[in-house]
């Protein structure tokens, strides 16, 4: 298959043409593309809000925007990035594309439901964009009551309805994945032969299924309280303001694991491939995904250490939050153990993977600071928190997303991107990211609170560093957009397995046929059987992707 012209063979991209063939497709691979285009759109919308935030914070005074506008900017940045980019990014794009192929299936269990999920996502996105166009929303992405339900004069109802709708897209995607992984595996594909990417998506789907409905009902209650003046969260009528926070974080803390678990799945594919080694401790990595999903449901109270929650509840939540670090650490240790004595090559996806390990370690360890009751009181609601979760959500999740997109790009398109530019972009993103967010740890430690558009002059140097880093980061994010689109037309033909990776998705031509495989594959060995390949032979045999 290597080197043959791609256009001759019929595959999922050329089987039919026209807008209709895309908007009415039930092929999981095409739906993945629909998601790829739409999450990229929302990523740059969210990035635009972030740009304005970083511009405003260049100087201590409020000179670009007023406080009200600033509140709207960080709210819409959060809402867009979390609900419309990070949560669907890896599951709906890479998960959709890869899960059926990795388990040897022709499609997901419910292809029409899969397409419906995308439409639901777009409908929710339109509501949120309409809210932004109508003047925005200023509650913060957390929609805390009673501000959101009574006092805010912005488009809260429109936004929460948008997020509510989009939630059902996540629920149905998770449902589809769970059923697919249970029932659609090819002969011989036992649970312990599944790629770790599939395990992590299984764990993610559990959170989608059990967490998202709780967010949905909480936001629905905020909307009816706002529109019909019901009294569920209203303190004036005896309502408990903490109730909303409990319901919200019951979903939204596990949602952090929705954002990071699929990324961990990507890294678990990249590290063995570019180290030419079987992943160290497969079962531990697999079960740590499930453990993160389960323990992740029991830690939400650490967002309310200073909100008047009982101190004993705080202690229990603190302890449980420490516990969730254990499965996360298992993963990091197992990846590094996989690297040990591996024959490592620094292709672009691997650069993202290595960046992920470093940034995730910093983000995870600072999470332990925040889980500690005493330290949290000092740094609560400061830039320390902002830096911490951006290390997880941007430093880790987006790095993994980009690493995964690079790694499977040849499979998705049949073309190679420019390796030199890709390495450069990975480097720029890593540098830009650290320059943006590391100063924020210091700012937070020194006491700069989040969500203010003005700050004392002594914080300016660190803020300027952060804004400078953000502009480098922006360049790093635009670069892949350019060379990836360029590669669609001018990239070298990839062949079916340019990385000489294991996994069923690499045994089918690139781009794959509509039914993924010409014959249903029969699985006879574990995932990551890299030991069989001689390291030098593997390196020499790899096409120089020209």
């Amino acid at each position: 298959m290597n080197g043959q012209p791609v256009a001759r063979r019929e595959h999922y991209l050329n089987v039919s043409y026209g807008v209709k063939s895309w908007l009415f497709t039930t092929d999981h691979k095409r739906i993945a593309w629909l998601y790829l285009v739409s999450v990229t759109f929302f990523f740059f919308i969210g990035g635009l809000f972030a740009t304005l935030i970083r511009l405003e914070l260049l100087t201590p005074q409020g000179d670009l925007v007023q406080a009200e506008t600033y509140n709207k900017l960080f709210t819409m940045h959060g809402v867009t990035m979390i609900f419309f980019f990070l949560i669907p990014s890896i599951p709906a794009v890479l998960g959709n594309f890869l899960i059926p192929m990795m388990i040897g299936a022709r499609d997901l269990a419910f292809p029409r439901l899969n397409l419906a999920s995308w439409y639901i996502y777009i409908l929710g996105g339109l509501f949120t964009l309409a809210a932004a166009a109508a003047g925005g929303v200023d509650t913060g992405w957390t929609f805390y009551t009673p501000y959101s339900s009574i006092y805010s004069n912005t488009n809260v109802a429109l936004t929460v309805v948008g997020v509510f709708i989009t939630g059902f897209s996540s629920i149905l995607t998770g449902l589809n994945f769970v059923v697919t992984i249970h029932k659609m595996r090819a002969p011989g594909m036992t649970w312990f032969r599944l790629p770790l990417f599939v395990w992590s998506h299984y764990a993610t789907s559990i959170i989608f299924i059990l967490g998202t409905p709780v967010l949905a009902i909480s936001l629905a209650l905020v909307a009816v309280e706002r529109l019909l003046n019901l009294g569920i969260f209203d303190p004036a009528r005896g309502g408990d303001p903490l109730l909303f926070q409990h319901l919200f974080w019951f979903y939204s803390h596990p949602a952090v694991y929705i954002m990071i678990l699929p990324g961990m799945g990507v890294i678990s594919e990249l590290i063995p491939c570019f180290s030419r080694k079987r992943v160290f401790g497969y079962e531990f990595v697999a079960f740590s995904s499930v453990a993160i999903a389960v323990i992740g449901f029991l830690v939400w109270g650490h967002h309310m250490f200073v909100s008047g929650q009982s101190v004993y509840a705080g202690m229990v939540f603190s302890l449980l939050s420490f516990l969730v670090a254990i499965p996360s650490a298992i993963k990091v240790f197992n990846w590094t153990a996989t690297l040990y004595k591996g024959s490592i090559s620094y292709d672009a996806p691997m650069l993202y993977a290595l960046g992920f390990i470093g940034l995730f370690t910093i983000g995870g360890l600072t999470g332990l600071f925040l889980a500690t009751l005493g330290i949290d009181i000092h740094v609560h609601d400061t830039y320390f928190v902002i830096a911490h979760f951006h290390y997880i959500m941007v430093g880790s999740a987006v790095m993994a997303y980009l690493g995964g997109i690079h790694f499977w790009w040849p499979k998705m398109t049949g073309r190679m991107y420019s390796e030199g530019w890709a390495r450069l972009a990975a480097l720029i993103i890593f540098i830009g990211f650290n320059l943006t967010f590391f100063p924020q740890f210091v700012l937070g430690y020194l006491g700069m609170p989040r969500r203010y558009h003005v700050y004392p002059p002594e914080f300016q140097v660190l803020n300027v560093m952060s804004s400078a880093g953000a502009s480098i980061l922006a360049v790093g994010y635009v670069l892949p957009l350019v060379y990836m689109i360029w590669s669609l037309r001018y990239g070298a033909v990839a062949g079916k397995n340019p990385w000489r990776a294991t996994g069923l998705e690499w045994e089918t031509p690139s781009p794959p046929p509509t039914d993924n495989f010409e014959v249903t594959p029969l699985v006879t060995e574990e995932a990551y059987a890299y030991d069989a390949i001689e390291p030098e032979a593997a390196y020499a045999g790899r096409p120089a992707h020209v």
Partner: protein
Amino acid sequence: MSKAEAVRAHQFDDSGQQHEASWIGMWVFLATEIMFFGGMFMGYILYRSLYPAAFANASNHLDVWLGGINTAVLICSSFTMASAVHSAAAGKRRTLVSCLLLTMALGLVFLGIKFSEYYVKFVEHLVPGISFVYEQRFAGPAEIFFSFYFAMTGMHALHMIIGIGLLTYLVVNSLRGRFSPSYHTPVEMIGLYWHFVDIVWIFLFPLLYLVGRHL
């Protein structure tokens, strides 16, 4: 179209796999529904433990007889739904259609009684937010109670309305002869959904109507 193989989608190897996939998918969906209603039950539990006297007092404003009749109506509708699944499996098309129609009728009776109750609450000024009048010492928490009453029973009624829509789809397709002993998965799935909605009511009835009874 009466053979199971004829309705097998391309991604499945055989109709057994397809049936099991639908089965798991439906149960997973019901799990999400439990979590969905669970958020409201959680709020109810919190406020009831905060304001037990006000909740008992407010609960006495609900008509326990109408609620009781509605409970009986729903239990009967679960029976007719179960009979519908049974007759689909036995291939008795006429019994299937009449069971489905009976289920729909009982669902409509439930909704009729429910909305007449809503109307009475409106007349009695017990609708929160619009015109809520209550004795002073319980006014705030009682308004919370009625907020939950309307939110929970309203969400339940919405599920009933969706259920009746789904039953209409089943009636149309059974009349067209789409279901057979070897393929009647939609009847089974919508049956599960219907039973789930009934069970939610089985929890709502004592929590909302019977809290005040023992006082």
